[in-house]
């Protein structure tokens, strides 16, 4: 327990987290501090490229094993299941209609890249290794979540609405499989894999040295954005807000169990927990505008950005790491 508190404090007093807090405070005090959307997009691009490339190099170092295949399958399955669980909780505890409950489910089945990156930075300060294929797992956790959430949501559509947008439109496929985040993550991973150590030597001055600094800038922006959307939570009932807190815990638990079962490293288990706990605020809401325009993003986005994201960043990550460690030691011991 003492250990957990230590870990949590170390997490809080790290530059990325403090810059996130700085951003939130600036937004709450209505300062004109601002990160332009253009810089924000550049920073996401950078983070994805760097994390993808590093993952690829890491992959090139290890041999492909059965575990990899199982892990990828597990990731996709979790991403398909989590929306069902989320949908169940929401329908049980709130008066939310099916369409929006399904949409929210899709967000929580999917993942947040920055939370994942913050997780890798956290693991680095704790000198924990993680498997390169975790990044492929992350990529595989978008499409199933969207499809699963969509299946749930569409049961709430009127016949007229249902007709206007067929379920499996080419739009859906394009959004889900050729989206820029997937492209850049998988592309960089492949390039890292192909160029291996030689590539890493050439790229390290770009993707490693300034990495934490760029992450800090991005977290500053995340703080600003999250802080600006906090207001919107006021119109939400307590049950929905609570969902934003407990759903990541549910997700993380499932992630830890699965990770231990598959036999991932401690770092890998932690990251899978983070993936399950985190919720999407970039890819999923954008995709749903195309394939489920009846869902209202002014419900899902403030919930994810205003509750779940900060919770994971500030408290979740060290918590999941601690829980994963306990589980991992038990498994090792047993």
């Amino acid at each position, binding site marked *: 327990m003492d250990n957990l508190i230590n870990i949590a404090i170390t997490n809080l007093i790290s530059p990325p987290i403090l810059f996130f807090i700085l951003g939130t405070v600036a937004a709450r005090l209505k300062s004109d501090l601002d990160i332009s959307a253009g810089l924000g997009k550049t920073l996401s691009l950078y983070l994805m490229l760097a994390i993808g490339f590093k993952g690829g190099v890491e992959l090139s170092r290890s041999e492909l094993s059965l575990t990899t295949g199982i892990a990828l399958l597990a990731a996709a399955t979790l991403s398909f299941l989590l929306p069902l669980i989320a949908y169940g909780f929401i329908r049980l505890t709130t008066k939310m209609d099916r369409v929006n409950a399904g949409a929210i489910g899709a967000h929580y089945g999917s993942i947040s890249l920055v939370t994942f990156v913050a997780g890798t930075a956290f693991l680095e300060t704790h000198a924990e290794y993680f498997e390169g294929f975790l990044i492929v797992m992350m990529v595989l956790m978008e499409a199933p979540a969207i499809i699963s959430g969509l299946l749930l949501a569409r049961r709430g559509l009127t016949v007229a609405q249902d007709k206007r947008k067929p379920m499996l439109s080419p739009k859906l496929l394009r959004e889900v499989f050729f989206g820029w985040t997937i492209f850049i993550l998988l592309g960089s991973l492949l390039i890292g894999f192909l160029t291996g150590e030689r590539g890493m030597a050439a790229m390290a001055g770009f993707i490693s040295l300034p990495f934490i600094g760029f992450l800090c800038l991005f977290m500053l922006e995340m703080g600003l954005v999250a802080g600006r959307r906090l207001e919107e939570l006021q119109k939400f009932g307590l049950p929905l807000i609570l969902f934003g807190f407990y759903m990541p815990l549910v997700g993380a638990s499932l992630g830890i169990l699965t990770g231990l079962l598959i036999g991932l490293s401690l770092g890998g288990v932690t990251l899978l927990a983070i993936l399950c706990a985190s919720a999407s*605020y*970039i890819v999923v*809401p*954008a995709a749903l*505008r195309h394939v489920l325009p009846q869902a209202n993003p*002014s419900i899902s*986005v403030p919930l994810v950005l205003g509750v779940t994201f900060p919770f994971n960043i500030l408290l979740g990550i060290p918590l999941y790491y601690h829980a994963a460690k306990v589980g991992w030691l038990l498994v090792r011991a047993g």
Partner: protein
Amino acid sequence: MELKTIKKVVIIAELAIKTDILNLINEMQAPGYTLYEVRGMGERGVRDYEATPLEYFKNIKFEILVDEDLAERIITAVMENYFEDYAVIAYLEDVQILRREKFKPRQN
């Protein structure tokens, strides 16, 4: 100077239907368009990509100079297909031009 009056169709909408509107412009053989990135507020709340850099909050604006007839067909199509589900407004303005041919529907 002899000026002729034609219509400017204005569509302000969320990014999600950009491609749809481009397709519409293409199908209706409008001779051209001009596209802006804007921010705004309306029935569906504040939409400001700069303040919240999520694609969902991007707003775009189309201006299409065409004959009255085509103008009405475009605005009707937009209303019918998108008003219910998307953040979008559309309206017409009068503009005065020198050479009407330039703004005739395209002949393929």
